[in-house]
């Protein structure tokens, strides 16, 4: 007995060390150090020591207030002394670029992650709220309430929004159709730029925004969180409730989220933007049960939105448009109101999902998901009023995903298949036809990781078959379309120095013409344009190169992400420069055509810690898009922009982990346009100034933030906002966000 104890004692290993601030090299006191099940707190000089009973691989976790938690795998053989440089005050730097996925599986994708906590602090009820501070993302807007993310200069059909692995299906071809997502229901959001997105389909050429389910802490708990936001412009606010519960014994996690938002008309610097109110109701339930090696999860969500369309932006014909353009202020100017009148949109989106994951030594991680989605979009105009929708589209989608993630020797293999069934029906006015569409895809990805580099290669095959049903001059016509093709990519990263990492990715992918590109036929009501689809369109193919250079040393973080996409048979809506006469008057004519195009650009982020409490950040995005067949510019591409940010991190004013930021963003005038192609000249360059103060109130679990957007109440119009023809963008706004967790 005694013998065995001494034997035990003999193999004990002592791990001692010191925790230092990586910026100042000074000791960090009271760091919390955890090695396996052993927990200690570092003393005033940053020293700690833990005794671990067995040799082998252990995980060392270090947490310190104001620092990102650090987790290190250690292989312990002898007593060891370790010096840990913790990037203290780096919490001043926001989202950190990560290359590895949460599971720490080798992965070559260029990923940015936004955590659930961050989403709550932003009170993000729309995807645009959630992504607003993410470098390299801008938005295609219709007023202040409809925003579609732009990655690598691309949006709509060339970006995929995914719920875990199932693509969100909601008429995303429309430039005034925002993604029907409530980010507060998400566990986190991943933004995957560029080419390394084969797993999620070949058509997301710009990138992928992935909504991930929440993960539960591995201990029994119940948490209730309340969220409230009030703002002055647009006047209104939101209330949110989140219930989260995990039972460590039965290993059942559940989360329910419910949010309501309501806003009245927004105010431009000097007038009211009539009929721009907004209402949103969203709720979701997520349940996760872990049983042995199996994870079962169930998700259901409901999303209902009603939003006003700027009264002055809904126009009848070219004469109305010219009348609107020649006026400096909107032609319809009513007093502020919470009421939403026609023209308006009402959108409902419901999702149900079941997922089963099984882990085994033989097969690795096998996951299967079934998703069903219903999207019902109704658009009301002045003619049919609030009762009968002028445009009424009902979209049903079912998706099945199967995938395997396994390690063979040094190589990680991911392979799988997906199938999709989709049905669209319409009522009222024709814009796109009824259709039935089947999609299938197969993919395989192999990843090899070594110490200093990682290389990944993937192959994907996609096929889709569409049958459309529509009347033409009283005759019911049926059209069949089939598109298929291969996508492939090679990507990887290499650490060329302790602080420098480069990423490279090359891919070829294709996108099939979408339903609006094939079938649009006639007047786009409200925007006074005649749009004609083309049934002869071929699929477009992109050849993409994405790179990234990351430098990360103490006080400086630097990241450049250049990209080049070359498209053959690029599909776009081209103004013909002609007008067509009808009884409604004259209309400009737009056709869907194909050309060869190139997107060349780069996103840049520089973060520097000026002093203990002060950090600065500079973001920039540059982009040049050209029609390669005739060397002309293409309509509707974001202008160059930069954002500068200064942040002061402190404890004080009854706040902990507090921050105060001032940011200024500059948007250049879009000069890369063809003359006489657009209705109006590009809006002038503008600069906006924003500020925000936030932090945790004393020792409570209350997070507060107070901010002002557009401090100088600048009058401006943005090239990527469709309302720019009719009215200024939103003026000064003050907001307060409260976030309390019980």
């Amino acid at each position: 007995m005694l013998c065995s104890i001494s034997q035990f004692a003999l193999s004990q290993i002592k791990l001692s060390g010191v925790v230092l601030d990586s910026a100042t090299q000074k000791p960090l006191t009271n760091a919390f150090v955890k090695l396996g099940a052993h927990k200690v707190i570092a003393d005033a000089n940053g020293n700690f020591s833990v005794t671990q009973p067995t040799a082998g691989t252990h995980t060392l976790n270090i947490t310190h207030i104001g620092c990102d938690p650090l987790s290190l795998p250690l292989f312990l053989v002898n007593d060891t002394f370790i010096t840990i440089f913790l990037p203290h005050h780096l919490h001043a730097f926001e989202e950190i670029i990560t290359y590895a996925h949460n599971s720490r599986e080798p992965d070559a994708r260029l990923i940015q992650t936004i955590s659930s906590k961050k989403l709550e602090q932003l009170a993000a009820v729309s995807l645009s709220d959630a992504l607003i501070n993410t470098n390299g993302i801008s938005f295609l807007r219709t007023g202040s309430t409809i925003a579609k993310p732009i990655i690598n200069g691309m949006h709509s059909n060339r970006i995929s929004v995914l719920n875990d692995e199932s693509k969100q299906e909601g008429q995303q071809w429309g430039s005034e159709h925002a993604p029907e997502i409530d980010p507060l229901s998400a566990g986190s959001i991943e933004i995957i730029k560029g080419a390394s997105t084969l797993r999620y389909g070949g058509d997301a050429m710009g990138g992928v925004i992935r909504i991930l389910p929440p993960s539960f802490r591995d201990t029994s708990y119940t948490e209730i969180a309340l969220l409230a936001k009030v703002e002055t412009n647009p006047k209104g606010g939101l209330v949110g409730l989140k219930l989260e519960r995990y039972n460590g014994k039965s290993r059942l996690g559940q989360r329910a989220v419910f949010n309501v938002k309501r806003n009245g008309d927004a105010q431009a610097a000097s007038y009211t933007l009539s009929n721009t109110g907004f209402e949103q109701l969203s709720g979701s339930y997520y349940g996760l049960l872990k049983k042995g090696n199996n994870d079962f999860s169930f998700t259901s969500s409901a999303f209902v939105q009603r939003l006003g369309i700027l009264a002055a932006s809904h126009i009848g014909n070219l004469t109305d448009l010219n009348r609107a353009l020649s006026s400096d202020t909107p032609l319809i100017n009513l007093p502020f109101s919470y009421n939403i009148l026609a023209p308006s949109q009402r959108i409902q989106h419901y999702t149900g999902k079941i997922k089963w994951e099984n882990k085994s030594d033989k097969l690795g991680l096998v996951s299967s998901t079934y998703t069903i989605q219903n999207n019902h979009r109704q658009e009301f105009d002045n003619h049919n009023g609030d009762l009968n929708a002028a445009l009424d589209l009902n979209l049903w989608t079912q998706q099945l995903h199967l995938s395997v993630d396994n390690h063979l020797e040094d190589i990680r293999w991911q392979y799988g298949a997906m199938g999709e069934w989709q049905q669209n029906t319409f009522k009222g006015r024709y814009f796109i036809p009824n259709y039935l569409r089947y999609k299938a895809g197969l993919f395989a990805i192999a990843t090899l990781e070594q110490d200093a580099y990682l290389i990944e290669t993937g192959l994907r095959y996609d096929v889709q078959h569409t049958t459309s049903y529509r009347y033409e001059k009283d005759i019911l016509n049926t059209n069949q379309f089939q598109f298929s093709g291969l996508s492939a990519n090679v990507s990887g990263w290499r650490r060329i120095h302790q602080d420098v990492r480069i990423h490279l990715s090359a891919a070829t992918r294709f996108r099939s013409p979408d339903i609006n590109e094939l079938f649009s036929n006639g007047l786009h009501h409200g925007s006074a344009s005649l749009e004609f689809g083309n049934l002869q369109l071929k699929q477009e193919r992109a050849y993409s190169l994405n790179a990234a250079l990351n430098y990360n040393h103490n006080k400086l973080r630097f990241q450049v992400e250049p990209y080049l996409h070359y498209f053959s048979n690029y599909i776009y809506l081209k103004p013909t420069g002609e007008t067509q006469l009808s009884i409604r008057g004259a209309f400009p004519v737009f056709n869907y055509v194909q050309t060869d195009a190139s997107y060349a650009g780069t996103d840049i982020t520089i973060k520097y810690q000026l002093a203990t409490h002060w950090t600065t950040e500079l973001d920039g995005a540059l982009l040049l898009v050209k029609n390669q067949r005739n060397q002309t510019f293409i309509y509707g591409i974001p202008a160059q922009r930069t954002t500068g940010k200064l942040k002061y991190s402190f404890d004080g004013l009854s706040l902990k982990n507090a921050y105060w930021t001032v940011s200024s963003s500059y948007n250049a005038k879009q000069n890369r346009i063809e003359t006489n192609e657009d209705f109006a000249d590009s809006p002038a360059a503008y600069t906006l100034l924003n500020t925000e103060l936030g932090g945790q109130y004393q020792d409570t679990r209350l997070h507060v933030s107070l901010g002002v957007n557009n401090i100088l109440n600048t009058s401006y119009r943005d090239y990527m906002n469709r309302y720019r023809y009719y009215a200024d963008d939103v003026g000064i706004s003050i907001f307060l966000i409260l976030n309390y967790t019980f």
Partner: protein
Amino acid sequence: MKQFRASTLTYIALVTLIFTFNACKDQVDTPPNPNEEELITTLELTFTNETNASDVRIFKFADPDGDGGNAPTITDSIVLAANSSYGLAVRFLDESKSPVEDITTEIVAEAIDHLICYTTPGDLMITILDKDSNNLNLGLAATVKTQALENTSLTIRLMHQPNQKNGNCDSGETDVEVTFITTIE
């Protein structure tokens, strides 16, 4: 809290499925026929000489398939006598239906949301005679006075101005806009 079993999850999923498939009854292969939608295809102007009731002149603009599609089929020119006064009656028709539907009655019913506007670069003098219930001009009936000989044009617009009608032509949405070549002889 009751333990949440995998079987419960499956059950919820099945119920969701059954529910959704029941709701999924829309027939994809029987789309609505857009030709059944209301359309204005024709603008008809009837001029009656106020001093000679037998001098009635009818001019038409017809675009049988509405906006988009084919070009208009009838594009009359207006011909009126100089130094005369005409009573003008305006009708909007849907000639794609059989029998032809007279949209004018709907405009009369929604007179407070509609206004017919007349513009000419020439010497025609147009006075609107009819009013809506708010005593604002409607424009389906007017007097047109011609002066000396001229070659000019007359533009007629049907404006839809829900909640914003104030008697002026500078707000709302244009439902119909036709420019007639006009000869005063």
